[in-house]
């Protein structure tokens, strides 16, 4: 049995992993890409359209796949990395249900993130109350074009609850997931387009639209789509007698409580650190279980030949992940050059 030695083993075949693998193969390195699932693309496979340009998610994945095909990267799908051990020459990546490990002179971890489990916020009644869905469910409905199956032909109103599992002390996620605000606006516009006569509400505590064109989309959602933004978060969700989602919310700008019944309520679930860890590998993690960029750049990346991409380091948009992947590929390239390729 031949030992499989690679210059770089990339773990995780999402957008970040694919991009870093392509960039390194372009520079002439022998790269292996290891993905646990049958298809490349990661979380992006579950999304329909992307903010802020309503680009097709599939198109982005296909483009990366095409580049990957012509790049010469050795792609291994259905291959789940179980553990990673360090040795003098590099790293061994153990695979589930396989005897031979992958050997890499360097490894790039692009394992991505987990999505917050909305059942932990019991007050929203996810999985209990009919009509309450998550933003991930929304993307699925959008992809399948199955809104009418869930809401019929003439629904009157929809709501989007921001910050579910983000900036929340109770679930120990004391950080902003960064992408949910703009996702809520995108999804609100999409459902308004599908049901023009329905009223669409966004219930927020702060709107964080940090990127250049996000504010533009927000304005468009207000002016052209007539989406209502209500400052205040939802509580006491129940089903009304008509089977709608009834709940209370304080309009904090008016200082008055509202009672409202809607056909659907979507919870904007946040980004959490990936929970599957590699037992033998001690990762530099911060209090949120994300890889800490400070520790990583100073000690880990330079010396040990282990690199991190995208959402392993915290919430990131797809664009930011792709940019980060390109930047990390330069670091890996330099490392390989400096360590006698």
């Amino acid at each position, binding site marked *: 049995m031949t030992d499989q030695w690679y210059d770089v083993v990339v773990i995780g075949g999402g957008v970040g992993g694919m991009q870093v693998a392509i960039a390194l193969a372009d520079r002439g390195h022998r790269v292996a890409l290891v993905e646990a699932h049958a298809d490349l693309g990661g979380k992006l496979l579950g999304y329909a359209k992307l903010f802020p340009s309503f680009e097709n998610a599939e198109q982005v994945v296909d483009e990366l796949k095409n580049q990957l095909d012509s790049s010469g990267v050795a792609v291994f799908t259905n291959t789940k990395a179980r553990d990673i051990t360090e040795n003098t020459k590099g790293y061994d990546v153990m695979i589930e249900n396989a005897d031979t490990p992958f050997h890499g002179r360097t490894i790039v971890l692009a394992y991505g993130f987990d999505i917050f489990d909305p059942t932990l916020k019991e007050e929203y009644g996810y999985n209990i109350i009919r009509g309450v869905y998550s933003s991930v469910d929304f993307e699925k409905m959008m992809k399948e074009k199955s809104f009418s199956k869930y809401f019929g032909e003439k629904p*009157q109103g929809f709501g989007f609850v921001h910050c579910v599992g983000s900036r929340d002390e109770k679930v120990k996620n004391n950080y902003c997931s960064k992408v949910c605000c703009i996702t809520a606006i995108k999804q609100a516009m999409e459902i308004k387009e599908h049901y023009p*006569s329905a009223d669409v509400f966004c219930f927020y505590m702060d709107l964080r639209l940090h990127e250049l064109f996000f504010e533009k989309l927000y*304005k468009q959602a207000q*002016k052209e789509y007539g989406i209502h933004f209500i400052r205040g978060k939802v509580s006491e969700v129940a089903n009304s007698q008509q089977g709608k989602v009834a709940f209370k919310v304080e309009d904090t*700008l008016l200082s008055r409580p*509202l*009672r409202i*019944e809607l056909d659907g309520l979507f919870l904007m679930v946040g980004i959490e650190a990936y929970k599957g860890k590699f037992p033998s590998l001690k990762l530099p993690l911060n209090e949120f279980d994300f890889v800490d960029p400070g520790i990583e750049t100073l000690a880990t990346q330079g010396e040990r030949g282990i690199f991190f991409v995208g959402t392993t380091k915290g919430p990131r948009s797809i664009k930011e992940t792709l940019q980060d992947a390109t930047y990390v590929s330069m670091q890996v390239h330099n490392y390989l050059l400096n360590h006698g390729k």
Partner: protein
Amino acid sequence: MANKFGFGALQPRSITVHLPLDSLYQKMVNAEPSLRLCINCGMCSSVCTANRFEETQFHKMVILLRYGLQEEAFTYARRCVLCGNCILTCPRNVNIRHVMFLLKKEIHEHSL
């Protein structure tokens, strides 16, 4: 005088939102689409001539209209002197004076 204890026979403070939203709100939004852009920041209220003496808060009025609380919105509209300070300061360029003018017209036409 007997000590008062507990709640009197008050109206509930909570607002029940009915869908579709109030027709006057729709009318105002159609007549002045920039109204939708309000982010309720309160800059208009801070410079409002009338608000120096009596509560006249446009940023709240937008919400009152949306929920169909016309009477409360009209109270604000009646106090407006159409000076236009609010338009100069609005970060979203909402034509507030036009909205106030339309509401005053509404009050006048229907003798409210």
